[in-house]
């Protein structure tokens, strides 16, 4: 749990630079941020700590974003998911209904903060 009482966020992306940016940005606003480089690691984190919001990259080696979403729901996960998407609309169409919202890369700091503010529980 964060000191300031703001939510706990899990960011799942295979790209360290993105994870670091998101973590730094959200920590500066008082959120607690956990990082995972791929789906399996993310599921492990979810099993360990309560998470209020998941920021999820779609294309990752290993378990893809879509597969992670399925596994997350199967395990009864309730945390809302925001997709961090760099893919085309076609690929997004299948997954968007499962997500609370979509942040399209390259998203800016203001966009990130506003979406997290709205969705974090």
């Amino acid at each position, binding site marked *: 749990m964060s000191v300031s009482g703001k939510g706990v966020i899990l960011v799942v992306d295979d790209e360290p630079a993105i994870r670091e940016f998101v973590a*730094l*940005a959200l920590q500066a606003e008082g959120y607690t941020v956990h990082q995972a*480089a*791929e789906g*399996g690691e993310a599921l492990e984190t979810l099993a360990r700590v309560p998470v209020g919001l998941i920021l999820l990259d779609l*294309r990752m*080696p290993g378990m893809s974003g879509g597969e992670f979403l399925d596994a997350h729901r199967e395990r009864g996960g309730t945390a809302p998911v925001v997709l961090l998407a*760099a893919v*085309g609309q076609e690929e997004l169409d299948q997954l968007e209904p499962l997500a609370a919202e979509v942040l399209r890369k*390259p998203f800016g700091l203001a966009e990130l903060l506003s979406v997290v503010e709205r969705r974090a529980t």
Partner: protein
Amino acid sequence: MDEPSQLERLLARVLGALREVVVVGRLETGGCRIVLWNEAAERLLGYSADEALGRDVELIIPTALREGYRQGLDRLRRTGGGKVLESRGPLELPALHQEGHEVPVSLTLSVLEGPGEPGQLIMGVIRDLRPRELAERRRLELETADARRQASEAANRRLRLLVAAGAALSASLDYQSTLESLARLAAPELADWCLIDMVEEGQVRRVAIYHQDAEKLARIRQVRDRYPPDPNRPRLQVLQTGQAVLHPEIRDELLQAEARSPEHLEELRSMGLVSGMVVPLVARGRILGAITLLTSESGRRYDEADLALAQELAGRAALAVDNARLYREAREAIRARDAFLSAAAHDLKTPITSLRGFAELLLRHGTAEELDSGSLRRALQVVDQQSDKLARLVSELLDISRLQTGPLALRREWTDLARLVGEVADTARSRSDRHELSVRVTEPVRAWVDRVRLERALLGLVESAMKHNPEGGAIEIGLERQAPDEVRIWVLDYGQTVSPERREAIFREASQPGDRLGTAMGLSAEASRRIVLLHGGEMELEVVQGGGVRMVVRLPLGGEPAEAGDGR
């Protein structure tokens, strides 16, 4: 002139009633004077009895024949006539009409022995040959017209077949269905049986077989399933020679040569084949397949004209198949381009996102000293790294698009690959502190390569290994001489995150013909593969027992064999 005797008058009356032309001439010193000219003679030759009687027979003989006529008369006088004339059959010759034209006639001559004047009277019985000639001409005309009609019908049938074939061939760009409809068209129009075999990736495949009788078709299909087309049998020799073959008659020896087993031979015999043709499908100098046309119950025997038609048909079919292939390739290229652009966009958006994000973070917090110095430093490091990554991605992107549109010129130079591998490892270490990189190199290996691009290709493989092991781990890059002129370079990781099977599937997908970009491979790995291919090498993925994956590059050392081999 003498008064006609009673006999002469009687004779003249009888002859006047006859339909045959009868002319009697009296042999005289200077010639042969007409003494009898019946009405039929007037009808045939124009002269009335008054005009003809008393004139020389020469009157009705065409100029060209008069010399012969006179010689004949001389001979008659010398021999005294008699049996000479009668021994000869009817003569066929032209007679001269009063109006100057010639009339084809048959002439039978006989010597009439008048009282006391043996051999003096000669009778000619003349028959008009025009009706016979007319009939003959009519018959000939009829025959010609019939032949023409038949020929024109055949030409029409051919034209209809070719038009229908054209329609069938252009109806679809899917060559399987195109060739099936062609087979249905050829049998029964041109054959009882139609078989189409195509060469696909070096293999011969039966794409169509057709006979009107569904029962026969089903039975033969069963046989054909057991005996797939064999390019080494006589029938499909055409796939090697490219020469059409005509069998006006299918003999048992041919079936024996074709049969794969006694049972197969029996099946072939039971088809009751009569005649056959095998024509190649050739487009732009390549033999794409063959059409086999066979007759059985129709009893039809093929000739050269049928072969020409079959070749015409095959030519059109080959063109259609070739068009379908070009279309498929074009579509494949468009799909590959779209996949490429999508992969490129994805890969480019990632560094742009972090660049933009860190820049905004610095703007927002950096100046207000809200970020501690560690975070500030880290942010600037990321901006620096990501700019570098972006620049590299852009040059890879350019390389790949140049590789796609045309040959990319390699700037080759003599390079020590062992040193290059070491440098790649150094660069990779600087990019990740999660991974442990080791180098396995035993000896210097000189190669004639584009040093800059090859370094980028190997770095791409190491980064791919890192990417598939996001939590870190050991990665080995190694080099060994495989043959005097070939070297093997590998990048090995013991990744557990992404299963080797999955990575193999990803790699296989990325290496599909048509150069489809496996998007999951990322731009880097694809660029690596293309650079290796450009050097005449190949790249493959090996699944390592106990987990892990080894990306292997086999590279020819290049240059002149002497230079590459002396180890300088």
